[in-house]
Structure formats: structure tokens, C-alpha cells
């Protein structure tokens, strides 16, 4: 038991050292995504959260890290997710209105605009519309969508992205 504990402490110390070395890059990544200065409290919070998550997941991640030999990339990936989650939370905390609902005060107008959005979705090219609905409405992952539609995941990503751009453009148009 004692030797096991010592080996755990050894692994833990190593992770802390590796993380300390990576911290400036984690801060830079988070700051860039949040579009804040590195000294901003949100950036500091996120960086701390990244450190905590990485240390927590060290055991789970070891196999993946060994396989890819890219511990740095993995940690920076965690940093991106933490920053993205922070932005999503910030948008929800601000209770920022959805794009369409924000444009009109009256609920009836908003409902009409949402119907227009549904029409825009219906007018999308078939492959884009199917991919978007499978992702947004049915909650399928890219891999499942790719398998169902018989295309690569890159194609699915492109279709979903184009569908969103198309919708955003149409919604912004007068």
C-alpha cells in the first residue's frame, strides 16, 4: 500500500510539473477564446479549472496520452472546452435573447419569426437540412450522422456549418 501511494504521489508530482510548464499556453488559449486579457479574472478562473480537470482526469487520460504522445495537445484541448463552456454559460447567465427573439419585442412577432426560421431550414439543400436536423433535433453525433448518410465526418461538419451560415445570413438579411 505504501509503495502504491508513493508511486501515485510520483505520478501526481510529474503531472503538476508538466502542467506548471504548460500553464502559460493554457492561459493564452483561454484568453484568446474568451477574447480577454490574460490577467482577466475569467481567464484565471478557467485556467485553474483546466488544471483541476487535467489532474482529475490524469488516470483516464494516461492511455490516450500514451497513444498520441501528445500531452500538450490534450491539455490545450481541455482548455478550449473549458473556455467554450464558459462562453456558453456567460451567454445563458446574461440571459441573452436568442437571435430572433431579440429582434422583436412582441411574442407573436417572435413566433412569426421562428416560423420564418423553420421555413429557412426547410429551404436548405437536402443534405445540409438532414445533417442539421439530425444534429440539432435528434441529438446525433457527427459520427452517427456520417454513418447514416454514408459520408465522411468532414462532410458532415461542412454541411452543418454551411447550413448554420445560411440560416444566419438569411436571419440577418432585412
Amino acid at each position, binding site marked *: 500500500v505504501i509503495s502504491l501511494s508513493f508511486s501515485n504521489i510520483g505520478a501526481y508530482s510529474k503531472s503538476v510539473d508538466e502542467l506548471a510548464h504548460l500553464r502559460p499556453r493554457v492561459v493564452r488559449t483561454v484568453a484568446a477564446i474568451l477574447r480577454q486579457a490574460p490577467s482577466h479574472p475569467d481567464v484565471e478562473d478557467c485556467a485553474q479549472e483546466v488544471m483541476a480537470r487535467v489532474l482529475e482526469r490524469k488516470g483516464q487520460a494516461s492511455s490516450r496520452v500514451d497513444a498520441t504522445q501528445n500531452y500538450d*495537445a490534450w491539455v490545450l484541448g481541455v482548455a478550449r472546452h473549458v473556455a*467554450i463552456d464558459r462562453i456558453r454559460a456567460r451567454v445563458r447567465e446574461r440571459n*441573452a435573447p436568442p437571435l430572433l427573439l431579440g429582434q422583436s419585442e412582441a411574442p407573436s412577432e417572435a413566433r412569426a419569426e421562428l*416560423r420564418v426560421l423553420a421555413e429557412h431550414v426547410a429551404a436548405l439543400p437536402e443534405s445540409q437540412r*438532414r445533417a442539421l436536423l439530425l444534429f440539432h433535433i435528434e441529438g446525433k453525433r457527427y459520427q452517427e450522422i456520417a454513418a447514416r448518410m454514408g459520408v465522411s465526418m468532414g462532410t458532415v461538419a461542412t454541411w452543418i456549418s454551411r447550413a448554420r451560415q445560411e440560416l444566419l445570413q438569411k436571419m440577418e438579411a432585412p
Partner: protein
Amino acid sequence: MSHFVRSDGHLTDAALSALVDSEDGVLDESAESHLNECELCLGRVGTLTETLTRLDGDLGRAPLARPTLPWRLIAAGGLVGAVGVALSFGDRASLPSLHTLGSSLAWLRHVHGVTTQPWLVGGCVAMTVICAAIAHKFSTNMRTQ
């Protein structure tokens, strides 16, 4: 140009969109390594996250085709199951009557009937479930086509 890297070396919107959707696995190594170094693309990730979070809200409220249970087909499956269950109780007549209580042969016949019923009921329930699953599959395909 790949799905994920533009001709100018920066990531495509599809790559950033996948990242925001937590689908990092689709990115190839070159896209991943570019992202780890490029603050411009990281900033685009931030902007896109904000926009897509709000778009998600709209899509969640829009009257799009939503998954609905295929009630008619489930009802048909249920009917088949119910008929099967009813049939499984059809040999109640073989229940030993009071005056044959003492007859071991009548009880044996009844026990034999009971032991075959679970298979029939199970088969009907399985048929119902299969009907529902097929119906759901069909309705899903129809919604997304």
C-alpha cells in the same frame, strides 16, 4: 483545400463549428496543431460559440419537425400483442373444475397449459416491441428526408 484548413492556412468555419459542437475528433492533426498556435482562429472559436449558443436557442424554439412517437403503428403493434395475450388465456376452459379437483390428470393438463403460455405472451410482447421499433425507424427516416 481540406474540410478543415483553408488555403491561407487558417481553419475553416466547418472546423471551428465542429469544435464548438465538442466534435474535436473530426479534426486532423494539421488542423489541431494550427489551432494550438493560432490566436486568430481561437478568437474565431469564441465568437462562433457565442453566435451558435444563441442560434441553438432559436432552433430549439422553431417549429421544426420534432421526433414524435409513431402512435398509429405502435397502436397496431399493441393490438397484435393484445390479441396474442387474449389467445394465451383462451384455454381457461381447461381449468380443472371443482368436481375434478381430485383428478391429477386434469391438473397436469392445466399445468401444461400454464407452462406454454409465457412463451406465447413473450412472443407477442416481442412482436409489439419489434413493430414499435420498425415504426420508429421508418418515422425517423421520413422526418429527415
